[in-house]
């Protein structure tokens, strides 16, 4: 899409009102410059762009967005955290408000081999690691919003797990937005470096209080060393007025195993881009996602599995449960580069439409440049099975309960792949409750 010489007004206001302060390294400054140029060039993608055909960002243009400042101390009370859906998960917690780290709300127990701090702090404290890894996994040119994040981020989480370390309890990154400020942009940036042979489980969750509109433009980079194992759970549970355009980019070294789970529960419109770079040989990668939009929500997943080395195994499972006038989008790109022989890539997208007015657009996209590979993909779209419903009712279960059990079973297919029991249990409870109100609505 060609842009006029004049810079798009929305683009320029997004960039101009943000001032990155403080002294930054030459490399970071250069990275930001490049990213800024990318974003200016790409702009806010119109639906004429192939990758945005189904996701119209028109409503985003209507907002007069401005970057969130550092939040006032006390603008949120600690018991907000206790009410969060995932509050029962044990382990260390880094809490961010409007994208900024809030120490007062966080709980970090020092542990050998684990560095968990704010990215703002890490930029000076662990400058060598940041220099080395920041911008490694995120492919700014692939998505304009990852570029926007790179140009403008100020804070986020920095996690470093030393080689061979097994972190017993999951680490939880919690991103909250305050109610008061509307039309704010948040640019959280997370850099997670897991060294060779280390094991860790992480959650990254976004929660919006109240009904304030605005944009969360997040980017998480996950650098996974040789033979390391990572389970990463992203939960997008923004309020129904916010836009969420977030990327999770993973770079996998030889024989590493990564499980990325992405749950899209909230937001007015969300796109989660998951980029998996299978850089080393013999890696195993799982991308596992669930989206449950209702009302007029739109939930979009855009996955890119980039096989660059031989013997990579990747499995993608995405289930959508769509109610009301909601829309779901799944776009699964699999790239097999020359030389990535014996790649085994599988992609499955299943959708359950709970109403006549919900829609799903799904698009697999295979780009295969090696000859000895196994790539499969499959899509289904359907309604609740009337035979199953009748069977359950004939045993005395009320229609609503029968519907609910079937809907939850469809969600559990995805949740069951989360290995960490605490996380799986907490999410299962939240999602079952959310889906409960969908089951009560009769559409027939």
């Amino acid at each position, binding site marked *: 899409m060609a842009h006029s010489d004049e810079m798009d007004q929305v683009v320029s206001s997004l960039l101009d009102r943000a001032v990155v302060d403080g002294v930054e390294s030459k490399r970071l400054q250069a990275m930001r410059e490049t990213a800024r140029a990318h974003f200016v060039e790409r702009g806010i993608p119109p639906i004429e762009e192939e990758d945005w055909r189904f996701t119209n960002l028109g409503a985003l243009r209507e907002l007069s967005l401005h970057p969130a400042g550092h939040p006032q101390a006390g603008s949120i009370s600690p018991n907000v955290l206790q009410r969060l859906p995932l509050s029962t998960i044990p382990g260390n917690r880094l809490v961010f408000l409007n994208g900024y780290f809030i120490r007062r709300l966080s709980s970090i127990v020092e542990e050998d081999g684990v560095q968990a701090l704010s990215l703002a702090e890490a930029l000076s404290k662990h400058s060598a690691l940041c220099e080395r890894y920041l911008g490694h996994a995120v492919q700014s040119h692939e998505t304009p919003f990852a570029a926007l994040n790179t140009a403008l981020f100020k804070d986020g989480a920095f996690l470093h797990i030393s080689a061979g370390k097994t972190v017993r309890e999951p680490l939880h990154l919690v991103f909250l937005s305050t109610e008061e400020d509307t039309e704010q942009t948040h640019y959280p940036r997370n850099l997670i470096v897991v060294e060779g042979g280390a094991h860790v489980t992480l959650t990254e969750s976004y929660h919006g209080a109240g009904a304030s509109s605005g944009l969360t433009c997040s980017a998480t980079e996950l650098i996974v060393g040789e033979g390391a194992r990572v389970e990463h759970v992203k939960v997008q549970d923004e309020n129904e007025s916010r836009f969420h355009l977030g990327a999770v980019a993973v770079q996998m070294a030889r024989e590493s195993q990564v499980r990325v789970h992405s749950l899209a529960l909230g937001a007015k419109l969300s796109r989660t881009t998951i980029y998996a770079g299978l850089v080393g040989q013999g890696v195993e990668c799982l991308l596992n996602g669930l989206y449950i939009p209702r009302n007029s929500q739109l939930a979009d997943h855009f996955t890119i599995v980039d096989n660059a080395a031989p013997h990579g195994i990747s499995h993608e499972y995405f289930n959508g449960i769509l109610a009301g006038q909601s829309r779901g989008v799944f776009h699964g790109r699999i790239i097999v580069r020359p030389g990535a022989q014996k790649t085994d890539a599988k992609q499955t997208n299943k959708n359950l439409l709970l109403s006549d007015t919900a829609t799903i657009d799904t698009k697999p996209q295979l780009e295969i440049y090696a000859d000895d590979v196994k790539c499969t993909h499959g899509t289904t779209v359907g309604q609740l099975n009337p035979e199953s419903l009748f069977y359950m009712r*004939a045993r005395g279960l*009320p229609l609503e*309960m029968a519907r609910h*059990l079937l809907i939850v*079973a469809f969600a559990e297919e995805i949740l069951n792949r989360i290995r960490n029991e605490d996380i799986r249990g907490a999410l299962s409870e939240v999602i079952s409750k959310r889906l409960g109100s969908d089951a009560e609505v009769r559409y027939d």
Partner: protein
Amino acid sequence: MTEPILKIRGLKAGVVDRSILNGIDLTIFPGETHALMGPNGSGKSTLAAVLAGREGYEVTDGEVWYAGKNLLELDPEDRAKEGLFLAFQYPVEIPGVNSTYFLKAAYNELRKYRGEPELDAADFLNFVKARVKLLELDESLLRRPVNEGFSGGEKKRNEIFQMAVLEPKLAILDETDSGLDIDALKIVANGVCKLRNAHNAQLVITHYQRLLNYIVPDRVHVLSEGRIVQSGDKELAMELEERGYDWLTKEAATA
């Protein structure tokens, strides 16, 4: 005189463009077992479906009284709670829904309906133990999703196990014997017999007289083209085994 459990009068039903049941009269009293036989496609499963309340069938005429209630006005789940049970000819697989959880939910719905307290998971497991034994059910099936991957015979046995747990007033068994091996047939039939008492009744749909050696019926009916063309005692089933349906369906056509 005691009130019938089921009283069907002049029932006509079908799908949108086609009539399947063409006037059925059938009365079943407490303590009775009736067998329903008839050629493929004669409407046996359709009758069972209409009685259980499956959507997609339209009743165009007639009435059905069940334990003094107008059955056709009830939702399927309410029929079940009133004690009507259909053992499906083709039990449905329900991936992701655990068998025990499902049956406990069904049982507790029944208890709630009767104003009895619900059972928790432990009490329920205790309660079903005897039924598991009665049908010599492989307990591991209960830990799996409903019917998922069950063999044909396991599905049928599971239907009767559910019946044993829910203790219906009227059980309609639709070809429960098909797909069962000889030993399983005895076990399942024996289970059904143990569940019979003076207050309940069974409508057994089958193609084979063999089942009726174990579950001895009080009455046998032959359905043909949506009508009961002959009724008799258990001897009728033996005659059918020997002579087939031809003589009856021809008689009906020329009558």
